């Protein structure tokens, strides 16, 4: 036992357990409990724990406090693996999250959104879809990161049901996982936000560590981060859930919501003292994440089904058009691109739109429109391979005028002459020019 004592003492590890604490001071502390914001800023100010062997420079832990009602209202549930804590909440069908009414999910066309994202449809009814988000003890990955709060939301009819599985200490995790696994059995599709990279592998790891069956093996998974990026990154930049819910759903979190980066520290503090006022804010944060995820899913389904208005943000129109242009609905994207173009797109989206339209019009048999895109592209300052190629194809195939095609190609090649960096376009144009010239020569001979 005493093997390492001396060495530990050399590190300055003097046990604090024997330090007597002044009971009155503890009372005073209780009566002057800090507000949530004070507590958060205190936690924030504590030096971040870096795991090093020289761990001696850390600040003292907060003083221990007697048990207080620390958790939101809920119940303790028992399982063969022990017990854990559950909080439930229901949102009626007329509940608005920002500007989205949650009850509309039953009529949202989720299949279509998934099809556009090249996901295999899983044929689930709206009641077989579960929205999931976890709160964890870290973001860094690895098996030492524990999900201490798992929030799931689903629809019963049009009423949104929210369930939060919470562990009051690490030994409750097997029970919590068991309940979660049992709960997930009734669903066919799980929707997350960044779950492909984070929540799902994390939970799978936890099921492996607990030696329990992995419920995700039998569930389809749809990560809303991917469509969100396709639809809104061009127009909005950040695709963090908190950013999109504010901009797209007009939902604003109150200051009872603990910011994500603080969450691990709040939980560690709770573990140490079995009390944390901020913990309520973590539950709140998790509810907001799950409900926002459901609302954002509805909004994204709307986006790909309802007709867009010309007044929409041009970049969002462009994004939507781009999502459609390589699907079976590519014809629809033509109007969207035109609408985006009419709304004044910044570069490089303007050129990309012209290039895509050039191809789409040609594919649609609308050759003159296609050519008009080419003339705009060729007139632009930035060189466009598609513009010159498109014009050459137009003259060669639809006009039967290979000589004009050759002129176009020669102009393109001239523009590339002094541009050493553009080897590939030069090769492509040159190959086309050679082939065409051979044909012209053959025709003459």
């Amino acid at each position, binding site marked *: 036992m005493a093997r*390492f004592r001396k060495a530990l003492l050399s590190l300055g590890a003097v046990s604090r357990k024997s330090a007597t604490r002044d009971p009155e001071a503890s009372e005073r502390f209780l009566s002057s409990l800090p507000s949530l914001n004070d507590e958060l800023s205190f936690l924030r100010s504590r030096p971040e724990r870096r*795991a090093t062997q020289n761990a001696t420079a850390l600040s003292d*832990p907060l003083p221990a406090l007697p048990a207080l009602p620390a958790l939101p209202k809920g119940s303790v549930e028992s399982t063969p693996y022990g017990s854990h804590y559950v909080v439930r909440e229901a949102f009626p069908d007329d509940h608005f999250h920002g500007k989205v009414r949650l009850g509309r999910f039953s009529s949202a066309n989720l299949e279509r959104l998934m099809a556009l994202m090249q996901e295999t449809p899983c044929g689930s009814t709206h009641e077989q879809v579960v929205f999931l988000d976890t709160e964890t*003890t870290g973001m860094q990955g690895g098996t030492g990161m524990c999900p201490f709060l798992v929030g799931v939301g689903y629809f019963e009819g049009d009423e949104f049901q929210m369930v939060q599985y919470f562990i009051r200490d690490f030994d409750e995790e097997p029970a919590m996982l068991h309940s979660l696994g049992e709960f997930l059995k009734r669903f066919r599709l799980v929707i997350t936000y960044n779950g492909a990279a984070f929540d799902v592998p994390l939970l799978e790891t936890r099921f492996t560590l607990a030696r329990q069956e992995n419920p995700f093996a039998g569930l389809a998974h749809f990560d809303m981060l991917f469509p969100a990026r396709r639809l809104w990154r061009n127009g909005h930049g950040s695709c963090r859930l908190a950013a999109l819910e504010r901009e797209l759903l007009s939902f604003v979190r109150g200051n009872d919501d603990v910011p994500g980066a603080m969450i691990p520290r709040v939980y*560690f503090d709770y573990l140490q003292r079995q009390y944390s006022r901020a913990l309520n804010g973590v539950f709140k944060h998790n509810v907001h994440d799950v409900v926002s995820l459901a609302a954002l899913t509805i909004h994204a389904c709307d986006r790909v089904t309802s007709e867009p208005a010309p007044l929409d943000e041009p970049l969002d129109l462009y994004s939507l058009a781009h999502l459609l242009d390589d699907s079976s609905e590519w014809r629809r994207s033509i109007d969207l691109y035109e609408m985006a173009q009419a709304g004044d797109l910044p570069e490089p989206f303007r050129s990309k739109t012209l290039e895509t339209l050039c191809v789409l019009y040609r594919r649609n048999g609308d050759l003159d429109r296609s050519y008009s895109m080419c003339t705009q592209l060729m007139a632009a300052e930035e060189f466009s391979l598609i513009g010159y190629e498109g014009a050459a194809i137009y003259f060669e195939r639809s006009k039967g005028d290979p000589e004009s095609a050759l002129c176009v190609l020669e102009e393109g090649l001239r523009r590339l002459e002094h541009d050493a960096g553009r080897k590939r376009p030069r090769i492509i144009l040159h190959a086309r020019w050679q082939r065409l010239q051979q044909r012209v020569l053959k025709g003459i001979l």
Partner: protein
Amino acid sequence: MRPKSHLALQDAALQKPTGLAEFLGELRKSKSVSGYHYIPARAPQTRPIPESLNSKIRQVLESRGIEALYSHQVQAYERAQSGGNVAIVTPTASGKTLCYNLPVWQRIMENPGARALYLYPTKALTYDQLDDLMDWSNALASLASDESAIGVYTYDGDTPQDARMAVREKGQIILSNPDMLHKAILPHHTKWARLFENLQFVILDELHTYRGVFGSHVANVFRRLARICEFYGSRPQFICTSATIANPQELAEKLTGQPFELIRESGAGESEKHLFFYNPPVVNAQLGIRRSYVKEAEHVATAFLKRNISTIVFANSRLITEILVRYLKESVERGPVPKDVVVGYRGGYLPNERRRIERGLRDGRIRGVVSTNALELGIDIGSLDVAVLAGYPGTVASTWQRMGRAGRRSGMSVAVLVASSTPLDQYIVNHPEYFIGQQPEMGLINPDNIHILISHLQCATFELPFAANELFGGHDVTEILEYLSERGFIHKAGTKWHWTSEAYPADTVSLRSISSDNFVVVETTNEARIIGEVDYSSAFSTLHEKAIYLHQGQQYYVHQLDVAERRAYVKQVDSDYFTDAITYTKVKVLENMSTIDAHNHGEVHVAHQVVGFKKIKFFTMENVGSGDLNLPTQEMHTTSYWLTIPREQFESLPFPPAERLNGLHGLAYALAQLSCVFLMCDRRDLGSAVDTGLEDRTFQPTIFIYDNYPGGIGLSRPLYEIREQVFAATAQLIRECACEDGCPSCVGPAAGAKEAALAVLALVKNGTLS
């Protein structure tokens, strides 16, 4: 200046090169050669390929012309087949890879689900082995109609993210390094479930490199590996291969916590070897000053290079490496060999540069290379004919490894050890019989170093919650867990400790050092670019402001050292001097654990500070200036041996006070050097310091020889135990040294040092100390 009798060094001989045989004859006759040793070629011992070996493997062996195996290969195969852990100790180029590949292939052919993890101490070695393994794997696949090739993959920092999944799923043999196991595999073990569930072999190549700090860390990584394997229900066998060291079995067992069987009879044949022990001539007999060993090494190497004989020169530090590159480039420039065929190679060069040099060496474009210990290991650099060792590498094992670098494939090889004037080198070069007959070093590790143990307990708890009654490396670690819990890193719930920090602990623990910091060297001559890295412990002495930092023979002037950001900004310069740091060390006793007479062992606090630097001119080595520095003190807590001399007795020695002090310092110097010989460790593993007690009238003059790593790595205790041998040898060295009044080869050139040191030794020997 140089006596004519030193034929080998006559410039005339260089200008009109004779053949190699004649040159060696001349070298043998040279007065500078203090010893010559001939190792005759040895015939191989072979045995038939074992009956039980899979017929496809046999076919591949035969298709490569292997009709029989070396005896040690068969032994290794048989013992591995019977389920034991095997350690194989054989020289370089003795076919040791087949020792572990045969049992692994055999197992995979029997059970394609089986997995093997190959660990190499460096990434470079991994790539070297990969190509070879792939060839065998493809050859096996071409014989099997139904199976695909054995999945051989590397997994390291360079493995692209999208390929990692394939490695985890399909890799039957995974080549990696302990750092990767520590940082990426163990902390993500659930992703590697397939590997850990089916792990049957762990191969540890170059076992002897797992010594000291690195070995102590890796032993703890294996403790963590054992926990993970237990979780997945596997019990892998270990196969280790090692260069010759004194205690391979003990080291393997201490590293892995498993019992081992040892195979140390090599059945491979060896080419003949000529070993020369070369002592640079004395230029000042009174002061005992010899010609610079760096210059002499350059001279010897040049003699070979000018005959277009491929030569590797080993230097003991980065600085000397760079100086030698510079010298050699200049001297061969005048000869028949174009100068860009001589290059430097050391840690701190970026990977691409190193790969380029390795290729150049293999295809023979590069004829001469100057290297630190970086090329000592089994990296395939093709066949070089001559190894020149500039200075004794510090250990017997390293010396044999370096000498073994010459003649891997040719019929004859030459190795020349050029001694420096340090006592250690002088002892070796004047007693070549000691070196030849000497047992090689022991691989000493201390897995229970508290700093290292705490780091890995954090990682272990991160990987799998730590049960309250669980042992770690056989120890009850409850106290450490409680300590970590008080610090908020872990938290006990029910019967288990859980990780409670946002940090990823493996990220902050480097296996290569006790502290994990590195400085990057940023060149700002033109556009800023990173040219190298230097670890924290040596950064202050090589990258202080105004230092000349050498890289590939090019000099860089350090104009700013940003300690907080761990960056050094340098500019290319062309100066005629280099810099050498001056350090100041203060040791304080914390706890005396054992005392006999004047000898003590216990725990100490060491404060180490770089306080200034000297400017030293190239070639002439004169001191051309100096500067003061104000750098942070590096502090550590470690274990130490120390000798205390009662003040009255010390002051009663019949010498003037200054000479007494010179004697004390000189004795410390000689003692530290010889301690390395007897402890069989590297010179850098030990620190030494003298406290003269001048500041404090009640303090006794003391010599400290301490473990030069925080927490200690287990060297000072054995030193305390074998002190009598060390003192006897030290006395002999000083007494027998030909100098009159102390020289760099014994106590250092300081007035009265020799006599005073011997007088102190006499006090120790006569037991008059109390």
